[in-house]
């Protein structure tokens, strides 16, 4: 994805903010829509969002930086999220964590150089009776071991 220009971003923010006009506490839904549109929250979107909601730019920045889901830089074409929580650890999750990091050559929250995959930790997917678990984009995968997760990420293009 090419970097959107400031005016493209401002125009998109205006449309999105209009869609949420009248809602109570609309900042999170607006940020989620901006991220869905651009794949991340562009720096250039923060001032227009702040103006649309009549709040400070610092407040928008504070919210974006608080939540794990919001990203200010583009991520990979695919996002692999591997559960690191206790229930998955009890079923061999540490081996899956190591397997996926080795298969991708990435540490947590890193993206492959070709922009193919971003690897993220997640703390519970609610699939705790059949772990270790991961999601590949929106697709859940359970009962993983190091080989299976390596196979699944190798298929991503």
């Amino acid at each position, binding site marked *: 994805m090419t970097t959107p220009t400031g005016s493209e971003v401002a125009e998109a923010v205006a449309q999105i903010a209009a869609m949420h006009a009248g809602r109570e506490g609309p900042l999170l839904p607006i940020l989620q829509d901006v991220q869905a549109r651009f794949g991340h929250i562009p720096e250039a979107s923060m001032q227009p969002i702040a103006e649309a909601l009549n709040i400070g730019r610092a407040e928008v920045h504070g919210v974006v930086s608080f939540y794990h889901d919001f990203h200010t830089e583009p991520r990979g074409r695919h996002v692999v999220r591997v559960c690191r929580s206790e229930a998955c650890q*009890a079923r061999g999750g540490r081996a899956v964590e190591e397997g996926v990091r080795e298969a991708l050559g990435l540490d947590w929250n890193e993206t492959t150089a070709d922009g193919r995959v971003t690897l993220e930790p997640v703390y519970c997917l609610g699939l705790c009776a059949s772990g270790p678990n991961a999601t590949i984009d929106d697709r859940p995968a359970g009962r993983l071991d190091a080989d299976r997760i390596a196979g699944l990420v190798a298929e991503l293009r």
Partner: protein
Amino acid sequence: MAGLDGVTRIFVPGDMAARSLGADAVAEAIAAEIGPDIRLTRNGTRGMIFLEPLVEMERDGIRHAYGPVEPHEVASLLADPESHPKALGPVDEIDWMRLQTRLTFARCGVIDPLDFAEYEAHGGLKGLRNALASGRQAILDEVTASGLRGRGGAGFPTGIKWTTVARAEAPWKYIVANADEGDSGTFADRIVMEGDPFTLIEGMAIAGLATGATQGYVYLRSEYPDAIRVMEAAVAIARENGVLGPDILGSGEAFDMEIRVGAGAYVCGEETSLLNSLEGKRGVVRAKPPLPALEGFMGRPTVVNNVVSLATVPCILAEGGKTYAAHGIGKSLGTIPLQIAGNVRFGGLFEIAFGMTLGEIVDKIGGGTASGRPVRAVQVGGPLGAYFPRALFDTPFGYEDFSSKSGLIGHAGIVVFDDSVDMGEMARFAMEFCAIESCGKCTPCRIGAVRGVETIDRIRAGDAAAKELLTDLCDTMTAGSLCALGGFTPYPVMSALRHFPEDFQPASQREAAE
């Protein structure tokens, strides 16, 4: 096809756990084989995650179960279901189903989650109709009489919370469903939202009638994309059918609601940071008082209840508070959806009256570990819950029973570990998780968790004197944190240190002991 003679309906769960185990491929393979006279339904899960994907075939009104079914087995299953090796018999006669008391989850896995007529045919709306007929005070009386307490973990009596909001004077009030189910080992909220979403909507509408609130929000974590899709669709269908809107079922009473998606912050499961997040702010904890019941969302009176608490309300209004309170022990009345998880042979959701011992749950229902090795530790109540050794397996499942053993039931997640677990490592992870997820408001949580990781590392490197320092640090976190994240992280840490001190010895000594 002779094998399917008399089969009128086939069910393959669309539940996220079933999908993670291949249910979509199974459903596609079945859809490609069957004719138009058989209805294929993507139901919720029955809770038997160890059998997923669990296929059910309905014949003469009886649902026969098969599982776990793999996609390549579909052809042989459809050709000859009765003698298939994966045949389990009628689903209601499987021990796991027979031994339960399913009140909150009565319809879950039974109906098509988004079929409103089927919801009503299976007892849906009965509670709401009773509520509309009986009026505000009678609803509050029923919920109070039921003994229902917050199923999110705090265990606060729901009737008292609702009465506080009902008595508060304000132009607007709110009902907020806490669906930020971030605790590892818990999935009851997810399962009910995916499998029986109208129950939550009905419960929220009843809460609105009882308190005078006219607007509801479900704060739903982003890690649950399937639940988000189902709940959004269900809200639209409920609105079309007059359950939500300006005139609930023709009563003249108004209540409407909206789904709001979280943004990946564990701390937003705490009710005050949830409210800040819902308002569009950083999910930082608020000091109490003021209670959210008086100054909650947008500073107005707000009921914040867990999904399971709200989803239990329709059944209480349908069958009566006293009937519900007849289940359970002491001050823990009614049923609790146990979520049996981790290294366990039979894992899933099991709804039963309070009072079963932890040992019965783990050994009898859960069947011991999946690995076949001995059970060493069980963490009850999520990442902030204590680790229980076998010596405490006689503890009955109840709020007070667990707090008397320096633990908590939390959202009733039970994570089983076998004897390969390193409890020093689990204690370290509890501190590490707290450091990652701390909202940063309280110093004991924000900095204490980081120091906690370092101190556990020192102990495990051979500095035995650091144990006293860790104990002191945990005392400070417990006493000096505003919410359960900093305040309860000492539960897993100190229980691990108390019950499994050998795991805190330096690696060289641990190896020598083995």
